[in-house]
Protein backbone atom coordinates (compact mmCIF):
# COMPACT_ATOMS: atom_id res chain seq x y z
CA UNK A 1 0.00 0.00 0.00
CA UNK A 2 2.87 2.35 0.79
CA UNK A 3 5.03 1.49 -2.24
CA UNK A 4 5.51 4.25 -4.88
CA UNK A 5 2.97 4.07 -7.75
CA UNK A 6 4.52 3.73 -11.20
CA UNK A 7 1.43 4.53 -13.27
CA UNK A 8 1.46 8.33 -13.96
CA UNK A 9 -2.29 8.48 -14.75
CA UNK A 10 -3.16 6.76 -11.49
CA UNK A 11 -0.79 9.16 -9.69
CA UNK A 12 -2.73 12.18 -11.00
CA UNK A 13 -6.04 10.56 -10.03
CA UNK A 14 -4.71 9.97 -6.51
CA UNK A 15 -3.38 13.55 -6.23
CA UNK A 16 -6.75 14.95 -7.36
CA UNK A 17 -8.58 12.57 -4.99
CA UNK A 18 -6.34 13.62 -2.09
CA UNK A 19 -7.04 17.29 -2.82
CA UNK A 20 -10.80 16.71 -2.89
CA UNK A 21 -10.67 14.73 0.37
CA UNK A 22 -8.48 17.45 2.00
CA UNK A 23 -10.91 20.19 0.94
CA UNK A 24 -13.87 18.15 2.25
CA UNK A 25 -12.11 17.59 5.60
CA UNK A 26 -11.32 21.31 5.85
CA UNK A 27 -14.94 22.21 5.05
CA UNK A 28 -16.27 19.78 7.67
CA UNK A 29 -13.79 21.11 10.27
CA UNK A 30 -14.63 24.70 9.42
CA UNK A 31 -18.37 24.19 9.79
CA UNK A 32 -18.13 22.11 12.98
CA UNK A 33 -18.57 23.71 16.43
CA UNK A 34 -15.39 24.81 18.30
CA UNK A 35 -15.53 21.96 20.83
CA UNK A 36 -15.51 19.38 18.00
CA UNK A 37 -12.46 21.10 16.43
CA UNK A 38 -10.78 21.18 19.81
CA UNK A 39 -11.25 17.46 20.31
CA UNK A 40 -10.03 16.71 16.78
CA UNK A 41 -6.85 18.71 17.49
CA UNK A 42 -6.39 17.10 20.91
CA UNK A 43 -6.90 13.62 19.44
CA UNK A 44 -4.51 14.12 16.52
CA UNK A 45 -1.89 15.69 18.81
CA UNK A 46 -2.13 12.74 21.19
CA UNK A 47 -1.90 10.09 18.46
CA UNK A 48 0.99 11.86 16.69
CA UNK A 49 2.79 12.30 20.01
CA UNK A 50 2.23 8.64 20.86
CA UNK A 51 3.55 7.33 17.55
CA UNK A 52 7.09 8.73 17.76
CA UNK A 53 8.05 7.40 21.23
CA UNK A 54 6.34 4.06 20.62
CA UNK A 55 8.15 3.56 17.32
CA UNK A 56 11.46 4.61 18.89
CA UNK A 57 11.23 2.61 22.10
CA UNK A 58 9.96 -0.67 20.63
CA UNK A 59 13.26 -2.35 19.74
CA UNK A 60 14.39 -2.83 16.14
CA UNK A 61 12.02 -2.60 13.17
CA UNK A 62 8.48 -3.00 14.40
CA UNK A 63 4.94 -2.75 13.07
CA UNK A 64 5.09 1.06 13.36
CA UNK A 65 8.37 1.50 11.45
CA UNK A 66 6.66 1.05 8.08
CA UNK A 67 4.71 4.30 8.67
CA UNK A 68 7.81 6.39 9.40
CA UNK A 69 8.47 7.57 5.83
CA UNK A 70 4.82 8.24 4.92
CA UNK A 71 4.41 10.31 8.10
CA UNK A 72 7.58 12.25 7.23
CA UNK A 73 6.15 12.89 3.73
CA UNK A 74 2.86 14.02 5.26
CA UNK A 75 4.70 16.55 7.42
CA UNK A 76 6.55 17.87 4.37
CA UNK A 77 3.28 18.21 2.41
CA UNK A 78 1.66 20.09 5.31
CA UNK A 79 4.67 22.43 5.53
CA UNK A 80 4.49 22.91 1.76
CA UNK A 81 0.90 24.13 2.02
CA UNK A 82 1.89 26.74 4.61
CA UNK A 83 4.64 28.19 2.37
CA UNK A 84 1.81 29.52 0.18
CA UNK A 85 0.33 31.18 3.28
CA UNK A 86 3.72 32.81 3.99
CA UNK A 87 3.85 34.26 0.48
CA UNK A 88 0.25 35.49 0.73
CA UNK A 89 1.14 37.18 4.05
CA UNK A 90 4.13 38.96 2.48
CA UNK A 91 2.12 40.06 -0.57
CA UNK A 92 -0.75 41.40 1.58
CA UNK A 93 1.53 43.35 3.95
CA UNK A 94 3.70 44.88 1.25
CA UNK A 95 0.85 45.33 -1.25
CA UNK A 96 -1.03 47.41 1.33
CA UNK A 97 2.04 49.62 1.89
CA UNK A 98 2.26 50.33 -1.85
CA UNK A 99 -1.46 50.92 -2.35
CA UNK A 100 -1.68 53.26 0.64
CA UNK A 101 1.62 55.00 -0.24
CA UNK A 102 2.86 54.71 3.36
CA UNK A 103 6.14 56.56 4.16
CA UNK A 104 8.14 53.33 3.77
CA UNK A 105 6.49 52.05 0.61
CA UNK A 106 9.77 52.00 -1.42
CA UNK A 107 10.91 49.10 0.82
CA UNK A 108 7.79 47.20 -0.21
CA UNK A 109 8.52 47.91 -3.87
CA UNK A 110 12.02 46.53 -3.30
CA UNK A 111 10.42 43.41 -1.86
CA UNK A 112 8.27 42.84 -4.95
CA UNK A 113 11.19 43.48 -7.32
CA UNK A 114 13.42 41.07 -5.36
CA UNK A 115 10.73 38.44 -4.92
CA UNK A 116 9.57 38.38 -8.54
CA UNK A 117 13.04 38.53 -10.09
CA UNK A 118 14.43 35.81 -7.80
CA UNK A 119 11.45 33.55 -8.51
CA UNK A 120 11.55 34.05 -12.28
CA UNK A 121 15.32 33.65 -12.56
CA UNK A 122 15.29 30.62 -10.24
CA UNK A 123 12.55 28.88 -12.22
CA UNK A 124 14.16 29.65 -15.60
CA UNK A 125 17.55 28.44 -14.30
CA UNK A 126 15.89 25.21 -13.16
CA UNK A 127 13.69 24.48 -16.18
CA UNK A 128 14.68 26.61 -19.23
CA UNK A 129 18.23 27.93 -18.69
CA UNK A 130 18.68 28.84 -22.40
CA UNK A 131 15.32 30.55 -23.01
CA UNK A 132 15.59 33.77 -25.13
CA UNK A 133 19.40 33.56 -25.05
CA UNK A 134 22.30 32.34 -27.14
CA UNK A 135 23.57 28.82 -26.59
CA UNK A 136 26.48 28.90 -24.12
CA UNK A 137 29.98 28.13 -25.31
CA UNK A 138 32.08 25.27 -23.95
CA UNK A 139 32.56 25.67 -20.17
CA UNK A 140 30.13 28.60 -20.03
CA UNK A 141 26.95 28.75 -18.01
CA UNK A 142 23.61 29.17 -19.75
CA UNK A 143 22.23 32.74 -19.52
CA UNK A 144 19.65 32.10 -16.80
CA UNK A 145 22.02 29.89 -14.81
CA UNK A 146 24.58 32.71 -14.88
CA UNK A 147 21.87 35.18 -13.81
CA UNK A 148 20.88 32.84 -10.98
CA UNK A 149 24.53 32.67 -9.89
CA UNK A 150 24.75 36.48 -9.86
CA UNK A 151 21.54 36.75 -7.83
CA UNK A 152 22.48 34.15 -5.25
CA UNK A 153 26.26 34.24 -5.03
CA UNK A 154 26.70 37.83 -6.11
CA UNK A 155 23.87 39.44 -4.14
CA UNK A 156 22.15 37.25 -1.54
CA UNK A 157 25.28 35.72 0.00
CA UNK A 158 27.19 39.04 0.35
CA UNK A 159 24.08 40.66 1.86
CA UNK A 160 23.67 37.91 4.49
CA UNK A 161 27.41 38.00 5.21
CA UNK A 162 27.14 41.77 5.71
CA UNK A 163 24.40 41.34 8.31
CA UNK A 164 26.44 38.61 10.02
CA UNK A 165 29.51 40.84 10.12
CA UNK A 166 27.53 43.48 12.05
CA UNK A 167 27.69 41.04 14.93
CA UNK A 168 31.33 41.96 15.57
CA UNK A 169 30.37 45.58 16.32
CA UNK A 170 27.36 44.57 18.40
CA UNK A 171 29.56 42.25 20.48
CA UNK A 172 31.85 45.19 21.27
CA UNK A 173 28.99 47.45 22.39
CA UNK A 174 27.33 44.67 24.43
CA UNK A 175 30.67 43.76 26.02
CA UNK A 176 31.31 47.39 26.93
CA UNK A 177 28.02 47.54 28.82
CA UNK A 178 28.45 44.14 30.46
CA UNK A 179 32.02 44.79 31.60
CA UNK A 180 31.53 48.23 33.12
CA UNK A 181 32.77 47.74 36.67
CA UNK A 182 29.79 48.70 38.83
CA UNK A 183 29.18 45.60 40.91
CA UNK A 184 31.22 42.67 42.20
CA UNK A 185 29.68 40.38 39.55
CA UNK A 186 30.58 42.82 36.74
CA UNK A 187 34.14 43.07 38.08
CA UNK A 188 34.51 39.28 38.14
CA UNK A 189 33.09 39.10 34.63
CA UNK A 190 35.55 41.75 33.46
CA UNK A 191 38.57 39.96 34.97
CA UNK A 192 37.48 36.57 33.60
CA UNK A 193 36.84 38.03 30.14
CA UNK A 194 40.22 39.75 30.13
CA UNK A 195 42.02 36.52 31.01
CA UNK A 196 40.11 34.48 28.38
CA UNK A 197 40.74 37.14 25.71
CA UNK A 198 44.44 37.35 26.51
CA UNK A 199 44.65 33.55 26.51
CA UNK A 200 43.45 33.54 22.92
CA UNK A 201 45.80 36.12 21.43
CA UNK A 202 49.58 35.77 20.92
CA UNK A 203 50.37 38.83 23.04
CA UNK A 204 48.68 37.17 26.04
CA UNK A 205 50.89 34.11 25.75
CA UNK A 206 53.94 36.37 25.35
CA UNK A 207 53.07 38.48 28.43
CA UNK A 208 53.29 35.49 30.78
CA UNK A 209 55.85 33.45 28.85
CA UNK A 210 58.44 34.09 31.60
CA UNK A 211 56.42 32.00 34.07
CA UNK A 212 57.38 28.32 34.48
CA UNK A 213 55.54 25.71 32.42
CA UNK A 214 55.42 23.22 35.31
CA UNK A 215 54.27 23.40 38.92
CA UNK A 216 51.67 25.61 40.53
CA UNK A 217 52.86 28.83 38.82
CA UNK A 218 52.03 27.43 35.36
CA UNK A 219 48.34 28.21 36.14
CA UNK A 220 49.20 31.93 36.18
CA UNK A 221 50.15 31.78 32.49
CA UNK A 222 47.29 33.34 30.52
CA UNK A 223 46.83 30.37 28.18
CA UNK A 224 46.48 27.96 31.13
CA UNK A 225 44.31 30.29 33.22
CA UNK A 226 42.04 30.92 30.19
CA UNK A 227 41.76 27.19 29.50
CA UNK A 228 40.95 26.54 33.17
CA UNK A 229 38.24 29.19 33.18
CA UNK A 230 36.58 27.89 30.01
CA UNK A 231 36.79 24.17 30.82
CA UNK A 232 36.41 24.14 34.61
CA UNK A 233 34.12 27.13 35.26
CA UNK A 234 32.27 28.00 32.06
CA UNK A 235 31.64 24.49 30.68
CA UNK A 236 30.10 23.06 33.91
CA UNK A 237 27.88 26.14 34.29
CA UNK A 238 26.68 25.80 30.70
CA UNK A 239 26.09 22.07 31.20
CA UNK A 240 24.11 22.82 34.35
CA UNK A 241 21.85 25.22 32.45
CA UNK A 242 21.47 22.70 29.62
CA UNK A 243 20.70 19.94 32.12
CA UNK A 244 17.90 21.98 33.69
CA UNK A 245 16.54 23.02 30.30
CA UNK A 246 16.54 19.42 29.00
CA UNK A 247 14.30 18.25 31.86
CA UNK A 248 12.15 21.35 31.34
CA UNK A 249 11.85 20.50 27.67
CA UNK A 250 10.63 17.00 28.56
CA UNK A 251 7.98 18.49 30.84
CA UNK A 252 6.88 21.00 28.19
CA UNK A 253 6.69 18.24 25.56
CA UNK A 254 4.49 16.20 27.90
CA UNK A 255 2.19 19.19 28.48
CA UNK A 256 1.85 19.77 24.73
CA UNK A 257 1.27 16.06 24.03
CA UNK A 258 -1.49 15.81 26.64
CA UNK A 259 -2.95 19.18 25.55
CA UNK A 260 -2.56 20.56 29.06
CA UNK A 261 -0.81 23.65 27.72
CA UNK A 262 -4.08 25.41 26.88
CA UNK A 263 -2.40 28.76 26.25
CA UNK A 264 -1.76 27.91 22.62
CA UNK A 265 -3.41 26.07 19.74
CA UNK A 266 -6.32 24.74 21.76
CA UNK A 267 -7.41 28.10 23.13
CA UNK A 268 -9.91 28.87 25.80
CA UNK A 269 -12.66 29.68 23.33
Amino acid at each position, binding site marked *: MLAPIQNPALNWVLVAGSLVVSILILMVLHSSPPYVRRWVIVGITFLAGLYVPLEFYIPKHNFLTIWRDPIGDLMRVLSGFTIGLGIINLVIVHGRHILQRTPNFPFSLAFFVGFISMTVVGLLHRYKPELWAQKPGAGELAFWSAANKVFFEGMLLPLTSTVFSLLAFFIVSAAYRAFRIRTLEASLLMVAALIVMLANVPIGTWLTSWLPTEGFLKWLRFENAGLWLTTQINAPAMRGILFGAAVGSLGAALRIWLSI*EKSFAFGGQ
Partner: protein
Amino acid sequence: MEHANWNTIYPYLVWTLTAIIGLGILLASLGKKLHIRRLPAIDAIEEAVGRATEMGRPMLFVPGLAGVDVPTFQAIAIAGHVARLAARYRSRIIMPVTDTVILTMAEQVLREAYAEGGAPDAFRPEDIRFLSGEQFAFASGVVGLMNRERVAANFFFGSFAAESLILAETGQALGAIQIAGTPSTLQIPFFIAACDFTVIGEEYYAVTAYLTREPILLGSVWGQDVCRILLTSLIFTTTLAQKFLPEFVINFLTKAG
Protein backbone atom coordinates in the same frame (compact mmCIF):
# COMPACT_ATOMS: atom_id res chain seq x y z
CA MET B 1 16.28 7.20 12.97
CA GLU B 2 17.73 4.48 15.16
CA HIS B 3 15.74 2.66 17.80
CA ALA B 4 16.30 2.93 21.54
CA ASN B 5 19.04 0.76 22.99
CA TRP B 6 17.56 -0.89 26.08
CA ASN B 7 21.03 -2.01 27.24
CA THR B 8 21.77 1.57 28.26
CA ILE B 9 20.29 3.72 31.00
CA TYR B 10 18.72 6.31 28.67
CA PRO B 11 15.34 4.71 27.80
CA TYR B 12 14.72 3.82 31.46
CA LEU B 13 15.71 7.33 32.50
CA VAL B 14 13.39 9.02 30.00
CA TRP B 15 10.38 6.90 31.03
CA THR B 16 11.14 7.36 34.74
CA LEU B 17 11.38 11.14 34.33
CA THR B 18 8.20 11.17 32.25
CA ALA B 19 6.41 9.15 34.96
CA ILE B 20 7.59 11.56 37.68
CA ILE B 21 6.40 14.61 35.74
CA GLY B 22 3.11 12.77 35.08
CA LEU B 23 2.84 12.12 38.84
CA GLY B 24 3.33 15.84 39.51
CA ILE B 25 0.50 16.64 37.07
CA LEU B 26 -1.71 14.00 38.73
CA LEU B 27 -1.01 15.28 42.26
CA ALA B 28 -1.75 18.86 41.18
CA SER B 29 -5.00 17.84 39.52
CA LEU B 30 -5.99 16.08 42.76
CA GLY B 31 -5.64 19.40 44.59
CA LYS B 32 -2.05 19.42 45.99
CA LYS B 33 -1.01 23.04 46.65
CA LEU B 34 2.24 23.91 44.88
CA HIS B 35 4.43 26.98 45.03
CA ILE B 36 6.59 28.48 42.30
CA ARG B 37 9.36 30.95 43.12
CA ARG B 38 9.32 34.52 41.84
CA LEU B 39 10.64 35.14 38.33
CA PRO B 40 11.38 38.89 38.05
CA ALA B 41 11.74 38.70 34.26
CA ILE B 42 8.19 37.44 33.91
CA ASP B 43 6.84 39.97 36.40
CA ALA B 44 8.36 42.62 34.15
CA ILE B 45 6.19 41.61 31.18
CA GLU B 46 3.20 43.58 32.48
CA GLU B 47 5.45 46.59 33.14
CA ALA B 48 6.76 46.39 29.56
CA VAL B 49 3.26 46.18 28.09
CA GLY B 50 2.16 49.12 30.28
CA ARG B 51 5.14 51.19 29.23
CA ALA B 52 4.54 50.54 25.52
CA THR B 53 0.88 51.52 26.01
CA GLU B 54 1.84 54.76 27.75
CA MET B 55 4.25 55.63 24.97
CA GLY B 56 1.66 54.76 22.32
CA ARG B 57 4.13 52.57 20.51
CA PRO B 58 3.85 48.90 19.47
CA MET B 59 5.63 45.91 21.00
CA LEU B 60 7.65 43.29 19.17
CA PHE B 61 7.52 39.58 20.01
CA VAL B 62 10.08 37.37 18.25
CA PRO B 63 9.38 33.63 18.73
CA GLY B 64 12.87 32.54 17.73
CA LEU B 65 14.38 31.10 14.62
CA ALA B 66 13.24 27.49 14.87
CA GLY B 67 10.28 25.81 13.25
CA VAL B 68 7.84 23.47 14.93
CA ASP B 69 9.58 22.41 18.14
CA VAL B 70 9.05 22.54 21.90
CA PRO B 71 10.85 25.88 22.57
CA THR B 72 8.84 27.57 19.81
CA PHE B 73 5.56 26.14 21.13
CA GLN B 74 6.51 27.52 24.52
CA ALA B 75 7.29 30.91 22.94
CA ILE B 76 3.89 30.96 21.22
CA ALA B 77 2.22 30.16 24.55
CA ILE B 78 4.04 33.11 26.17
CA ALA B 79 3.05 35.32 23.21
CA GLY B 80 -0.57 34.40 23.92
CA HIS B 81 -0.23 35.71 27.47
CA VAL B 82 1.50 38.93 26.34
CA ALA B 83 -1.28 39.42 23.77
CA ARG B 84 -3.97 39.03 26.46
CA LEU B 85 -2.26 41.78 28.44
CA ALA B 86 -1.90 43.91 25.31
CA ALA B 87 -5.59 43.42 24.53
CA ARG B 88 -6.48 44.76 27.96
CA TYR B 89 -4.76 48.04 27.05
CA ARG B 90 -5.67 47.77 23.33
CA SER B 91 -1.95 47.81 22.46
CA ARG B 92 -0.38 46.45 19.34
CA ILE B 93 1.99 43.47 19.10
CA ILE B 94 4.07 42.87 15.98
CA MET B 95 5.22 39.29 15.62
CA PRO B 96 7.70 38.48 12.86
CA VAL B 97 8.16 34.77 12.20
CA THR B 98 10.63 32.73 10.23
CA ASP B 99 8.52 29.63 9.65
CA THR B 100 5.24 29.50 7.77
CA VAL B 101 3.74 26.80 10.01
CA ILE B 102 4.44 29.03 13.02
CA LEU B 103 2.83 31.92 11.12
CA THR B 104 -0.55 30.16 11.06
CA MET B 105 -0.25 29.02 14.69
CA ALA B 106 0.79 32.47 15.90
CA GLU B 107 -2.06 34.16 14.07
CA GLN B 108 -4.62 31.80 15.63
CA VAL B 109 -3.17 32.13 19.15
CA LEU B 110 -2.96 35.93 19.05
CA ARG B 111 -6.44 36.26 17.56
CA GLU B 112 -7.85 34.13 20.42
CA ALA B 113 -5.77 35.98 23.01
CA TYR B 114 -7.09 39.37 21.88
CA ALA B 115 -10.63 37.96 21.98
CA GLU B 116 -10.07 36.59 25.50
CA GLY B 117 -8.57 39.92 26.52
CA GLY B 118 -11.80 41.60 25.48
CA ALA B 119 -10.53 43.46 22.41
CA PRO B 120 -10.94 41.22 19.33
CA ASP B 121 -11.06 44.29 17.09
CA ALA B 122 -7.61 45.41 18.31
CA PHE B 123 -6.02 42.36 16.68
CA ARG B 124 -4.42 43.13 13.33
CA PRO B 125 -3.64 39.99 11.28
CA GLU B 126 -1.08 41.93 9.23
CA ASP B 127 1.03 42.37 12.38
CA ILE B 128 1.89 38.66 12.28
CA ARG B 129 4.49 38.74 9.57
CA PHE B 130 6.45 36.09 7.78
CA LEU B 131 9.76 37.76 6.94
CA SER B 132 12.11 35.10 5.64
CA GLY B 133 13.27 31.57 6.29
CA GLU B 134 16.90 32.74 6.00
CA GLN B 135 18.57 33.54 9.34
CA PHE B 136 20.18 36.88 8.51
CA ALA B 137 17.49 37.99 6.08
CA PHE B 138 15.07 37.48 8.97
CA ALA B 139 17.39 39.36 11.35
CA SER B 140 17.69 42.34 9.01
CA GLY B 141 13.92 42.30 8.50
CA VAL B 142 13.33 42.41 12.27
CA VAL B 143 15.90 45.19 12.72
CA GLY B 144 14.14 47.18 9.99
CA LEU B 145 10.76 46.63 11.68
CA MET B 146 12.11 47.78 15.04
CA ASN B 147 13.47 50.98 13.54
CA ARG B 148 10.47 51.82 11.36
CA GLU B 149 7.83 51.06 14.00
CA ARG B 150 9.90 52.55 16.89
CA VAL B 151 8.89 49.66 19.16
CA ALA B 152 8.75 50.40 22.89
CA ALA B 153 9.13 46.82 24.15
CA ASN B 154 10.83 43.75 22.75
CA PHE B 155 10.16 40.15 23.77
CA PHE B 156 12.61 37.53 22.54
CA PHE B 157 11.44 34.04 23.45
CA GLY B 158 12.39 30.83 21.65
CA SER B 159 15.45 29.27 20.03
CA PHE B 160 17.96 31.80 18.77
CA ALA B 161 21.35 31.64 17.10
CA ALA B 162 23.89 34.31 16.09
CA GLU B 163 21.16 36.84 15.25
CA SER B 164 20.20 37.16 18.94
CA LEU B 165 22.69 39.95 19.64
CA ILE B 166 21.88 41.82 16.42
CA LEU B 167 18.23 41.97 17.50
CA ALA B 168 18.84 42.72 21.17
CA GLU B 169 21.46 45.41 20.56
CA THR B 170 19.21 47.18 18.06
CA GLY B 171 16.42 47.18 20.65
CA GLN B 172 18.85 48.48 23.26
CA ALA B 173 19.93 51.31 20.96
CA LEU B 174 16.27 52.23 20.41
CA GLY B 175 15.71 52.38 24.17
CA ALA B 176 13.09 49.62 24.19
CA ILE B 177 12.48 47.63 27.36
CA GLN B 178 13.65 44.11 26.53
CA ILE B 179 12.75 40.73 28.01
CA ALA B 180 14.33 37.57 26.66
CA GLY B 181 14.17 33.87 27.34
CA THR B 182 15.87 31.07 25.49
CA PRO B 183 16.95 27.48 26.02
CA SER B 184 19.83 28.11 23.55
CA THR B 185 22.68 28.19 26.08
CA LEU B 186 25.14 29.91 23.74
CA GLN B 187 22.81 32.88 23.29
CA ILE B 188 22.04 33.44 26.99
CA PRO B 189 25.15 35.62 27.63
CA PHE B 190 24.22 37.87 24.70
CA PHE B 191 20.72 38.36 26.00
CA ILE B 192 21.97 39.00 29.54
CA ALA B 193 24.32 41.67 28.19
CA ALA B 194 21.77 43.41 25.98
CA CYS B 195 18.35 42.88 27.60
CA ASP B 196 16.79 44.28 30.76
CA PHE B 197 15.51 40.89 31.94
CA THR B 198 16.49 37.39 30.89
CA VAL B 199 14.91 34.03 31.65
CA ILE B 200 17.51 31.27 31.59
CA GLY B 201 17.60 27.49 31.45
CA GLU B 202 14.69 25.65 33.02
CA GLU B 203 12.93 28.91 33.92
CA TYR B 204 12.02 29.17 30.25
CA TYR B 205 9.79 26.10 30.49
CA ALA B 206 8.17 27.29 33.72
CA VAL B 207 6.97 30.62 32.30
CA THR B 208 3.44 29.53 31.30
CA ALA B 209 2.93 27.82 34.67
CA TYR B 210 4.12 30.99 36.42
CA LEU B 211 1.89 33.22 34.31
CA THR B 212 -1.31 31.20 34.49
CA ARG B 213 -0.81 29.59 37.95
CA GLU B 214 -2.84 26.68 36.63
CA PRO B 215 -2.42 23.83 39.14
CA ILE B 216 -1.77 21.21 36.43
CA LEU B 217 1.02 23.27 34.87
CA LEU B 218 2.50 23.93 38.31
CA GLY B 219 2.37 20.16 38.89
CA SER B 220 4.49 19.56 35.81
CA VAL B 221 7.04 22.13 37.04
CA TRP B 222 7.09 20.41 40.45
CA GLY B 223 7.67 17.08 38.67
CA GLN B 224 10.57 18.57 36.70
CA ASP B 225 12.19 19.81 39.90
CA VAL B 226 11.90 16.34 41.46
CA CYS B 227 13.52 14.93 38.29
CA ARG B 228 16.43 17.38 38.60
CA ILE B 229 16.99 16.47 42.24
CA LEU B 230 16.92 12.76 41.37
CA LEU B 231 19.28 13.14 38.42
CA THR B 232 21.72 15.25 40.42
CA SER B 233 21.66 12.70 43.23
CA LEU B 234 22.27 9.90 40.71
CA ILE B 235 25.26 11.75 39.23
CA PHE B 236 26.77 12.50 42.66
CA THR B 237 26.26 9.05 44.18
CA THR B 238 27.50 7.12 41.14
CA THR B 239 30.51 9.43 40.80
CA LEU B 240 31.43 9.01 44.46
CA ALA B 241 30.76 5.25 44.47
CA GLN B 242 32.28 4.41 41.08
CA LYS B 243 35.20 2.53 42.63
CA PHE B 244 32.82 0.22 44.47
CA LEU B 245 30.31 -0.40 41.68
CA PRO B 246 30.55 -3.62 39.63
CA GLU B 247 31.74 -3.21 36.05
CA PHE B 248 28.41 -4.12 34.43
CA VAL B 249 26.72 -1.29 36.36
CA ILE B 250 29.39 1.19 35.25
CA ASN B 251 28.96 -0.02 31.64
CA PHE B 252 25.19 0.31 31.89
CA LEU B 253 25.50 3.85 33.22
CA THR B 254 28.15 5.10 30.82
CA LYS B 255 27.42 3.28 27.56
CA ALA B 256 26.40 5.69 24.79
CA GLY B 257 22.80 5.36 23.58
